[in-house]
């Protein structure tokens, strides 16, 4: 394929997970505006990607017994990786990943508290798949570009979150501060906008937000589930005073309410946090790093503009993303390759470009862990350390070694693809630099790639030599630093 649409490719890397040859053929005939519209208006695209699991034309999964992505966390990870590779709604998966990092929840704590099966359901049960509410990641996917206030409400009453940040233990007699602190420090406006007094008050606001275990008739994990419940008798009914405005009239006090109406306390606080201007600005800064650049700090004008769009649209995220993708900051190619690829972004993009014939997404899980990103297992409630934080030496080595393993897995396909360029090392290099999409190589690393192709026995272009050199070249390109940016 010839590469002639740098902006379309930039868009697909940032607003999606890169492009397979078919993706590129589909999008490159569109104008940039049309492509952005198609990505944003994903509700008009059928959400049927999961139906293709098991179809030989797509990447495979590995079942241990029955493939159980709704109740087995390893299978849930496989399903999500499959969706990232093959979904025709790439922006939805991208935003789901963004919010997974924002509302970082660790499966391991769920497992330790409620067991493996119920814990996996709390994270990943798809609506209607197994009895009980949908899992956290499905709720995030549903609200991925909706109103942030709604997403924040759903996360506050999400059973996985109520286990993870101990909301289920937050009672009238003994308020528990874990969630009350993090909803301010990490989920909304951040440090510097609240005091310890606010932490106490927020903990009391959410007393009574709890979960209930419903056992299936057969008492199996598959048919049992946790659901949200408001326990009025556990709610602290006294007024709560904050240091920032809760209501539009500037009042900082959530009034005393009857226990039966006590859930409104939390909804009032959520609404106040969601519309707070510093929340808008903090989300804008995070979206700058996610969509525009991790090399340049957020442009103050960008932050102000995004916050204004957010406020004007009642905290809805879709118009904000639309604004960003159409903005001069995003559409400036000076910001291309200014974003450090997260391990899952790197791996999914490489699969889309290298190929997936005979590949099981299950083989991606261990390399991802070695690179520092296990889905449903961020390091802590603050999420992953992004940008340079991904690139410790051990993680850099893990990326190089993953490139070796994906090149080995696809070596015969790569060798066949190389047959078009058996005439010379230069031809092979040219073909593969067109097939993959690393950041541009300067002459020194380019010469290093060429030197590799010439190393060893004299060039004959035999099938055996092509298979060897195509695999080695693929590992060098995919493992190079130039490929770690998007």
């Amino acid at each position: 394929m010839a590469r002639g649409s740098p902006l379309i490719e930039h868009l697909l890397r940032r607003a999606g997970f890169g492009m397979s040859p078919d993706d590129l053929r589909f999008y490159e005939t569109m104008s940039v505006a049309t492509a952005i519209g198609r990505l944003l208006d994903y509700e008009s695209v059928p959400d049927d990607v999961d139906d293709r699991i098991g179809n030989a034309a797509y990447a495979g999964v590995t079942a241990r017994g029955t493939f159980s992505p709704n109740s087995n966390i390893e299978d849930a990870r496989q399903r999500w990786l499959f969706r990232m590779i093959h979904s025709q709604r790439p922006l939805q998966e991208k935003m789901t990943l963004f919010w997974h990092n924002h509302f970082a929840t660790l499966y391991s704590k769920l497992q330790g508290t409620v067991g493996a099966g119920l814990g996996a359901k709390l994270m990943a049960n798809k609506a209607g798949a197994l009895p009980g509410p949908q899992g956290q990641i499905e709720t995030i996917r549903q609200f991925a570009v909706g109103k942030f206030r709604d997403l924040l409400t759903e996360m506050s009453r999400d059973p996985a979150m109520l286990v993870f940040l101990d909301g289920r233990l937050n009672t009238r007699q003994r308020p528990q501060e874990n969630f009350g602190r993090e909803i301010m420090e990490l989920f909304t406006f951040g440090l510097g906008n609240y005091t310890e007094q606010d932490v106490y008050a927020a903990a009391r606001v959410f007393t009574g937000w709890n979960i209930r275990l419903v056992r299936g008739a057969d008492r199996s994990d598959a048919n049992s589930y946790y659901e949200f419940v408001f326990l009025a008798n556990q709610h602290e009914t006294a007024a709560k005073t904050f240091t920032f405005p809760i209501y539009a009239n500037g009042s900082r006090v959530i009034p005393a309410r009857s226990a039966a109406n006590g859930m409104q306390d939390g909804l009032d606080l959520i609404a106040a946090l969601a519309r707070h201007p510093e929340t808008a600005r903090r989300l804008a800064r995070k979206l700058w790093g996610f969509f525009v650049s991790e090399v340049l700090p957020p442009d103050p004008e960008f932050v102000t503009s995004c916050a204004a769009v957010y406020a004007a649209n009642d905290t809805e995220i879709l118009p904000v993303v639309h604004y960003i993708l159409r903005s001069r900051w995003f559409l400036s190619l000076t910001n291309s390759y200014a974003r450090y690829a997260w391990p899952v972004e790197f791996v999914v993009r490489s699969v889309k470009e290298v190929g997936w014939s005979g590949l099981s997404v299950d083989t991606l899980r261990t390399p991802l862990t070695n690179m520092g990103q296990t889905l449903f297992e961020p390091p802590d409630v603050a999420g992953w350390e992004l940008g340079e934080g991904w690139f410790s030496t051990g993680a850099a080595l893990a990326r190089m070694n993953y490139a070796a393993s994906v090149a080995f897995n696809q070596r015969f396909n790569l060798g066949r693809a190389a047959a078009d360029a058996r005439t010379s090392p230069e031809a092979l290099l040219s073909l593969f630099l067109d097939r993959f999409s690393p950041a541009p190589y300067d002459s020194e690393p380019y010469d290093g790639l060429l030197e590799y192709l010439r190393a060893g026995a004299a060039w004959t272009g035999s099938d055996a030599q092509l298979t060897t050199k195509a695999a080695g070249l693929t590992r060098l390109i995919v493992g190079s630093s130039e490929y770690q940016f998007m």
Partner: protein
Amino acid sequence: MSVSRRDFIRGGVAAFTVSFAAPSFLTEVARAQGARSRSLVVLYLGGGNDALSTLVPYQDQFYYQRRPVIAVPAGQVLQIGTDMGGRALGLHPRLTGLRDIFNDGRLAIVQRAGYQNSSRSHFQGTDIWGTADPGSPSVMGWLGKFLETVPSDALSGWSATREVPRALRSRTISVPAIPNARTYAFNSPNSATEAVHERAAATRIASHVPVNRPQLSFVNTAAIGALETLDRVASVSTYTGTVAYPNNGLALALRTVAGSIVRGIGTRVYWVQTGGFDTHATQGAGGTGAYGNLMGSFGGSVLAFYNDLRNQGLLGDTMLLQFSEFGRRISENGSAGTDHGAAGVMMAMGGAVRGGIYGTAASLDPNPGNPTLENNGGDVRFETDFRSVYAQVLDNWLGANSTSILGGDFRAGAPAIV
């Protein structure tokens, strides 16, 4: 250089691994520093360790009043005497390993370590401890600044966790993250000879310094850091130790560190961490349960490390320094756990450490006028500035200049732990 063929199973494919023969691991730099130069092992207990459960003021009636469920019964603590203020203290009952080291006179315990206006945020707190700068926790870590003062070497620092913590970051030193020496190898999709060509090419490609793309230079530096250290690290991968280490992540990381010390790699600063200390809930009643298990693996791992180094005559060259980002609330919460608090406990272990209890315990009387507490009697107030402990370690153990590294003179009032 030799090339060995070895199947690698990770990722489910067979391929080849390039390695280079020992004993060339002992580089000129390492020799110049002296293979047995002093090293510092920093152990971070992630999540905010509940200091009052680690070191129990078992004669303070308020301790029992304020922790009716989780308090460790006085009869179960491991008594280690009294502090300078005459307060009786005991280690958590699962810390028998540390009690043994304490009885050898090789464990120093610094009570109420912290700083003014302690942050209750994990992330800000960790940055403050990492940079030793509560005012502006910037990019540079205190250990990274120290490493800039020693001869440059790719393994002068070693993070035995997957990431490199802020404490080890600096402008010019790229510290490798090597959680497991055994999987730290260069794999290839091709045969042995071809793998050598690939490694040479990967090294050449990553050696490039693009002047106008600093982000690319950063990743290249990490890649080169890996490629340059592979062979020396490989020499550690076979290390098993002279004692049986417990089977947990902390112990295995400490065994890797011990292997590096024994093999004379020349590393000056190691970073080891273990998590699970954010015990908001079900900490465990009376010293049992989740917190007890944390203490069991902490104490058992450190004891194995201590015995292993002692058996090999290397204890005198090693110091382990333990900290956490904050202590926890004095009163337990409604879920048999504790929320984020203020001052915590630090410990130092090693052959040159002057064992004992440093500082004075707080009175846990919730009276708001109690000067040893803060936050209306909710949290323990710091007594020893953690930077004075850092200063002590930098000046008297690592032979550095604490005033320049810490950006101020914190030597006054430092506990004389070494």
